């Protein structure tokens, strides 16, 4: 559990040819998963993932449908706890502490590790209250107006909504709603923001706004994004992990194939399966 045992190790076996990737060198690992498996009931969704996620980088998780990338992401802030049949094995070390360890409060976990979902999910409240609600709940009530404004500014939404803060968030476009959800997530000053296909329901212009934001936000936060869009991963991510579906007799489950710097994954992947996926021959 000590910090010095937390030195970044070679991320996964398949990529063993490489030591700590260049862009990760010297960076602190925010997450380190060890033998992480997640299942729903008897169905194994993702198996035995060892992955380190580094501070102030954008880490993308790519792979075909059903490869367990969302399940993996949701296991990083105990979001899977909400599904009664879900079970997680292995360890997720967050700054050295296992978030599934004894005495860990999932509410505290989620307060530090925020999330933006696939479909924009603003609360049925005003734009202002969408951002302010989390702040109120967490007792960050000093300078509420200032905090709301800063979060909306960081999410590049302030100029579009400053005149209608008291209006319902449902009146915003899909792209604006998603940036509102991002503002809501960063307003409570998390350490990490997990993004589960945040742009898949958005048009290209809204998507590019979200991507631009990610470049800005990584200075302050550690970002992990699941995407099925390889171009998006190539554009936004410093590190990319490729997951795939390993077929077995009982159906199949997701596995981590390769994890490396993004350019490496897209130009010189070490694994045939990665190459097949990024070149479009498979998946």
């Amino acid at each position: 559990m000590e910090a010095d045992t937390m030195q970044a190790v070679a991320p996964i076996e398949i990529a063993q040819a490489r030591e700590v990737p260049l862009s990760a060198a010297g960076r602190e690992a925010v997450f380190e998963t060890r033998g992480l498996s997640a299942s729903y009931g008897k169905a194994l969704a993702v198996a035995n993932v060892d992955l380190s996620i580094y501070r102030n980088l954008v880490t993308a998780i790519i792979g075909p449908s059903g490869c367990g990338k969302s399940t993996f992401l949701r296991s990083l802030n105990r979001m899977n706890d909400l599904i009664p049949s879900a079970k997680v094995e292995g360890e997720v070390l967050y700054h050295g502490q296992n978030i599934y360890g004894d005495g860990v409060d999932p509410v505290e976990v989620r307060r530090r590790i925020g999330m933006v979902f696939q479909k924009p999910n603003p609360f049925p409240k005003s734009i202002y209250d969408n951002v302010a609600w989390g702040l109120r709940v967490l007792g960050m009530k000093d300078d509420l107006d200032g905090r709301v404004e800063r979060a909306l500014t960081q999410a590049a939404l302030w100029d579009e909504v400053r005149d209608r803060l008291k209006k319902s968030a449902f009146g915003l476009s899909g792209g604006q709603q998603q940036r509102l959800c991002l503002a809501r997530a960063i307003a409570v000053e998390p350490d990490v923001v997990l993004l589960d296909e945040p742009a898949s329901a958005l048009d290209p212009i809204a998507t590019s706004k979200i991507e631009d934001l990610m470049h800005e936000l990584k200075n302050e936060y550690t970002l992990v994004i699941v995407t099925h869009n390889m171009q998006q991963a190539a554009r936004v991510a410093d590190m990319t992990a490729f997951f795939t579906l390993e077929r077995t007799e009982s159906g199949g489950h997701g596995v981590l194939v390769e994890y490396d710097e993004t350019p490496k994954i897209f130009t010189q992947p070490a694994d045939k399966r990665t190459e097949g996926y990024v070149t479009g021959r498979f998946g």
Partner: protein
Amino acid sequence: MAVDAGRYSLTPNPRTRRRKLVNVLMQGLATLAALAAVAVLAIVIISVAQRGASALSWDFFTKTAATFGQGGGGVANALVGSFVIVALATAMAVPLGILVALYVSEFAPPRIADLVRLVLDILNGLPSIIIGIFVFGLLVIGSGQAGWKGSFALAIIMLPLVARATQEVLALVPSSLREGALALGASRWRTVLGVVLPTSLGGILTGTVLAVARAAGETAPLLFTTSIAANAVTWDPRQPVLSIPYDIFVLSESPDPADHARAWALGLVLISFVLATSLTARLLLVRYRKKLEG
């Protein structure tokens, strides 16, 4: 170009004619049945209105029953009594019903949730006379009748209605909203209080209004619990108070024909209330659905 008339014929033959006949017949029967249902409601409302309208007057609403044989008099005590009993029953049943629904849909493990749902359905199906006797045995024997004891019986009837209706609207709240709240580091209870409940308020209101309409018309639970009342308007639920449905029963048993007219008139009041509340509930639900769908 000789067309095989038998094989490719597009005109009816005996067999298709029979099928068509059956089709028309069944469609007609179904339509008639639907019309009959509408007609029953219409006939009830019209006949009650015809017989009762003449007895409606200012005195009817503001005075208590006159001495036998004397003209005039009204049902003010029954109106006030029903208001007091039902309001108190609502105050008991609604908070409890909402909490039960929250337990079922937000906190309980799936198996226990199913069990509680089943219990609520059985409770909903209990004959109201049984609830009346139960409350009689529990509260009335030994200490006498009181308005609040009637409210207690009505609350038992309202509880499953409120709980089931609430639980159904809670199920409509998208789980993505709960996830969004929890992902901010909110506890489950704060999530429920801050996001889930406000989102489902419209639906909860609808369920409550329907339960009120149902309770207002219940007679059996009040028979044993709050029926022997003084002929005076009282707002005190510690006293036995008269209620609209029970007063209809009493008036219709009276030998005085003027009382029969009052019974019809009181029936008209009750029917109007139930209709108005049911329609309001419908309207609320439509508006709520629209709001939820954005």
